[in-house]
């Protein structure tokens, strides 16, 4: 009498309990833990302070230097040095040093994530890995210390909301537009404390890059997990990484949901999130014409090869408008290499893009492309909160790579369908 959601299945398995239901507390084994450079040194300091002999399962730990890349200050360089020392002393299973890429790109790209895993990380966008049917979520540093020292952590089994997505995206509309539209329609709170299952006939058509974008932003509508089923698309993606068939994984057909929302996608326009909330969303036509000073293509949301390719298709043979800075940050070294090998990088550079290191950079207002007071930017990342990219008096719009590229050329927010190359 199985009727479990994906979240219930995964948490039950990880907790070693035959069946769990939403609302229950469980203590579960952690399959994979990721810590990035903002928190790693502090987390490891605290693990050692706690009296724990070391990491409960070093092989399950991945450390990534991605936020402060390359080190923008002497303090950051010092922080990175301390992380490298800890990584060596504690036998951390996998370490990606500065320049390898953004954590949420590296975990799937290098084959760390598999369907059914319970994954935690010191970053809210851990929901990204739900694209591979992993229950992945962000935790803070104290919880991470506990998880590393004991190999386990408490969880409340969440209720699940299911989005049944149907229809076919029109040319020029991509899955970034879909998740922005969902945020706009349902609000930043709709999935608070809850898991989301992205399902329905439209999902079968998506590639892994699109799923990663959608799951990445599931946290922007509150989600604890943002899950897709494991299917043929998942298997193909894993096979490319040398991972043998893990089989399909899905909720039971009669699982019980807190809510099921049917959403039809065929009539969707490209979407833009307006300052300063991710759920203030409008079709691009409503804001087209707003002048911009900066355009950013990158981040764990949309810094993948597919995204750079979509931007290059628009920018091919064009120039960025005078007075606009176009910044491109490939999400990993592999993405950078691939984009270079395929000539995508050349196209972007010829159009006037500055290529940033593979890391977070301006996405979180860290460094390397910040905004001044009164400036306006459009980017492919996931947050437009006050002060997110520098000055609290700057305005941030969020959109797809195609919309950002079209806006960079126009010098103002523009509909990518008004440009050549916007094939879809």
């Amino acid at each position, binding site marked *: 009498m199985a009727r479990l959601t994906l979240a219930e299945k995964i948490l039950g398995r990880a907790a070693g309990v035959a069946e769990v239901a939403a609302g229950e*507390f469980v203590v579960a084994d952690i399959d994979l833990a990721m810590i990035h450079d*903002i928190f790693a040194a502090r987390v490891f300091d*605290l693990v050692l302070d*706690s*009296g*724990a*002999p070391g990491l409960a399962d070093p092989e399950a730990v991945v450390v990534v230097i991605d936020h402060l890349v390359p080190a923008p200050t002497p*303090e*950051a360089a010092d*922080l990175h040095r301390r992380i490298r020392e800890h990584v060596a002393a504690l036998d951390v299973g996998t370490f990606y040093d500065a320049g390898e890429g953004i954590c949420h790109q590296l975990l799937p790209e290098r084959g760390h994530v598999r369907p059914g895993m319970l994954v935690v*990380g*010191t*970053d*809210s966008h*851990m929901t990204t890995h739900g694209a591979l049917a992993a229950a992945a979520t*962000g*935790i*803070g*540093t*104290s*919880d991470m*210390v*506990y998880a590393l*020292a*004991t190999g386990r952590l*408490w969880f*409340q089994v969440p209720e699940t909301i299911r989005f049944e997505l149907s229809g076919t995206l029109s040319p020029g509309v991509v899955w970034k537009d879909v998740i922005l539209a969902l945020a706009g329609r349902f609000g*930043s*709170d709709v999935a*608070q*404390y809850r898991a989301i299952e992205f399902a329905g006939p439209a999902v079968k058509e998506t590639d892994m890059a699109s799923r990663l974008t959608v799951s990445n932003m599931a946290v922007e509508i*509150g989600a*604890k997990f943002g899950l897709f089923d494991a299917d043929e698309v998942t298997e193909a993606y894993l096979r490319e990484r040398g991972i043998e068939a893990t089989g399909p994984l899905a909720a039971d057909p009669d699982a019980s949901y807190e809510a099921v929302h049917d959403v039809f996608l065929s009539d969707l326009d490209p979407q833009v999130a307006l300052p300063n*909330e991710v759920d203030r969303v409008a079709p691009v036509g409503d804001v087209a014409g707003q002048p911009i000073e900066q355009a950013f293509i990158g981040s764990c949301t949309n810094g993948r090869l597919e995204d750079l390719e979509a931007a290059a298709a628009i920018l091919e043979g064009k120039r960025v408008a005078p007075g606009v800075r176009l910044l491109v940050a490939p999400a990993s070294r592999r993405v950078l290499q691939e984009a270079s090998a395929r000539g995508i990088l050349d196209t972007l550079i010829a159009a006037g893009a500055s290529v940033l290191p593979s890391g977070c950079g301006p996405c*979180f*207002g*860290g460094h390397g492309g910040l905004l001044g007071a009164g400036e306006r930017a459009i980017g492919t990342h996931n*947050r437009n*909160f*006050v*002060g*997110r990219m520098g000055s*609290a008096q700057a305005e941030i719009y969020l959109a797809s790579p195609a919309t950002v590229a079209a806006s960079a050329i126009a010098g103002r927010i523009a509909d990518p369908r008004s440009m050549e190359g916007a094939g879809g």
Partner: protein
Amino acid sequence: MAETIVRGRVWHFGHDISTDLLSPGGFAIGSVDERKMHTLESVNPGFAGDVRPGDVVVTGRNFGCGSSRETAPENLKALGVGCIVAESLSRLFLRNAVAIGLPALVCPGVHEAFADGDDIEVDLASGRVVNHRTGAMLEASALPEEMREILDAGGILAVLRRQFGGEGDPSSG
């Protein structure tokens, strides 16, 4: 059971107060004493300087949305904030607040029922929230026992230290 009554002045904030506001990105790696003085500075520049121990942050929907940075609740705790009462809390903020031992409650209607500077009393055990200026009384959802145990211990690191520090933790298993 630890002290369950918090009484103090209300600091009233709006909806969707993000971790970027609670712990601005550029200060993410500074010391807590440095960091805490920037808490909510772009919403209320006077807050960090004037907040007193036991004061209560009353806020709207989705408080603490955004990143996983534990420095968000940590800054508030370091400033002496006694508890947070919100229309709704972001999952990560609640999880982190519990992990560091800062009580945070969800209480529908609280945003409307309070104004800046009101005299508030919160019973963490029962969830009763009183406005001593207006006499209004509200019910917050009480925290699940598992979370209260961590709060009472002083946070999850205290629980961990007990496990590895030889003092033993009867509830571990």
